[in-house]
């Protein structure tokens, strides 16, 4: 009887101790694992990296992004990231406001009461304000992206930035008008005011998008041209085999022809952006932008092919 008691007592003493030891071992393992994991993990988040267009001279000296050599984001880049974040938030607010506006308007149309009218006026005012905020954010994003994109004529870029500034200023005036619109008539005036500027806003937005798409590919074209010249120089310097040299020269001629065609296409696109005296002014709409993108896609494919050709040429 006594021995059984002793056994039970020893069991009750040992079980928590064993549990404690097990817990401590697992705790230590967890700490070491977490520590080694944190030491090994290198996270690279560089969302905006593709948006950074660099000049061809810079490209040769810029180190490539690698875990050991991370590029630090420029202030403009950080600003762009923040603005994108704000845009996303404001857009979701707009969507909620638009839903509320539709419900309130429907209620008013059904009930035709003063109370429902008041609710509808407030909901309309709210959605008009959120729309203006979203558009302000968007124009700000376009401005920052244009600033970062090379490959656009400096004069044209400056003019486009001024147009974006003017559009933002006009939107600000409209926003003030909407904020003061507390009754049905003032709301109507705000709507009329927006109708006078909406066309300009769309135009300047699509113009910016067209220039952005064009400018990026123009930059890549310029870089390709520089690399092509380097390849040609290296070929003349290193290739001793006359037969192989002749073959590679012919390959370079083919690349030159392709690049010339690409340049012509790019010039054609650019000509379409610039107003010419006595001719119809260029129009920037969603349709025209779609056409620009289709043409630029061909340029993109051509450039990719030329890069593949250049790779073949530098092969020994």
């Amino acid at each position: 009887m006594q021995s059984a008691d002793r056994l039970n007592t020893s069991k009750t003493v040992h079980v928590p101790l064993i549990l404690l030891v097990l817990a401590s071992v697992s705790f230590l393992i967890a700490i070491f694992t977490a520590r080694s994991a944190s030491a090994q993990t290198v996270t690279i988040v560089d969302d905006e990296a593709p948006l950074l267009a660099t000049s061809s001279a810079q490209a040769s000296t810029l180190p490539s992004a690698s875990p050991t050599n991370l590029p630090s984001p420029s202030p403009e880049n950080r600003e762009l990231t923040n603005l994108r974040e704000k845009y996303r938030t404001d857009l979701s607010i707009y969507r909620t406001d638009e839903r509320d506006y539709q419900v309130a308007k429907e209620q008013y149309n059904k009930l035709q009461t003063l109370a429902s009218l008041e609710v509808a006026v407030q909901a309309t005012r709210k959605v008009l304000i959120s729309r203006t905020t979203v558009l302000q954010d968007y124009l700000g994003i376009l401005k920052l992206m244009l600033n970062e994109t090379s490959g656009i004529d400096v004069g044209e870029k400056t003019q486009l930035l001024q147009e974006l500034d003017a559009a933002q200023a006009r939107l600000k005036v409209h926003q003030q008008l909407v904020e003061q619109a507390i009754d049905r008539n003032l709301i109507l005036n705000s709507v009329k005011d927006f109708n006078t500027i909406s066309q300009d806003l769309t135009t300047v937005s699509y113009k910016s998008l067209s220039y952005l798409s064009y400018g990026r590919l123009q930059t890549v074209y310029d870089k390709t041209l520089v690399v092509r010249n380097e390849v040609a120089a290296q070929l003349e310097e290193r290739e001793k085999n006359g037969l192989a040299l002749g073959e590679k020269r012919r390959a370079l001629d083919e690349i030159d022809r392709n690049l010339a065609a690409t340049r012509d296409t790019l010039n054609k696109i650019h000509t379409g952006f610039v107003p010419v005296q006595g001719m119809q002014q260029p129009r920037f709409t969603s349709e025209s932008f779609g056409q620009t993108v289709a043409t630029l896609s061909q340029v993109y494919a051509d450039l990719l092919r030329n890069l593949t050709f250049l790779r073949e040429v530098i092969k020994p």
Partner: protein
Amino acid sequence: MTENNKAASTAKPPAKDRASHPAEVNETDVLSNQTTFFEQEVMGESPAELPVDIDPNFAEKEIARKKRKRILILAGTGSIAGLLLVVALLVLIMPEAQQRLTATPSPIPFGQTPTETALSRRLDEVEADLRAADPVKLDAPFPPVNMTTLYLDAPPR
């Protein structure tokens, strides 16, 4: 009743008498009596157990022993927990081993000169820029907002 039984009944004294005079039952009688068992006795009339010597301080000693054991367990648990805490703090405070990142020369593909490798790298960079400049993947589409029919009363055209 048989004769044997009669003899047995006469030979066996009543239980009360047996208890009061245990010396009277001798082995020979019992062995000669075939109807009784050796050392048989009436249930409940076993001889009383002798009183065991009980230590008057036994309870106190037992309590003290249990107390000591509890203190030992607590102390052990506390010391292990303290040790764990110290180890955890040491591990957390200990500076991480700095990996020495040295610029190792990239291996040059077979048959390529360093110039060719540099050109190949340049081409890689240009291709990366080109893929980032894909016009189809422009990351700033016009915002999906209602630009035309957001009003309470339709404005005059």
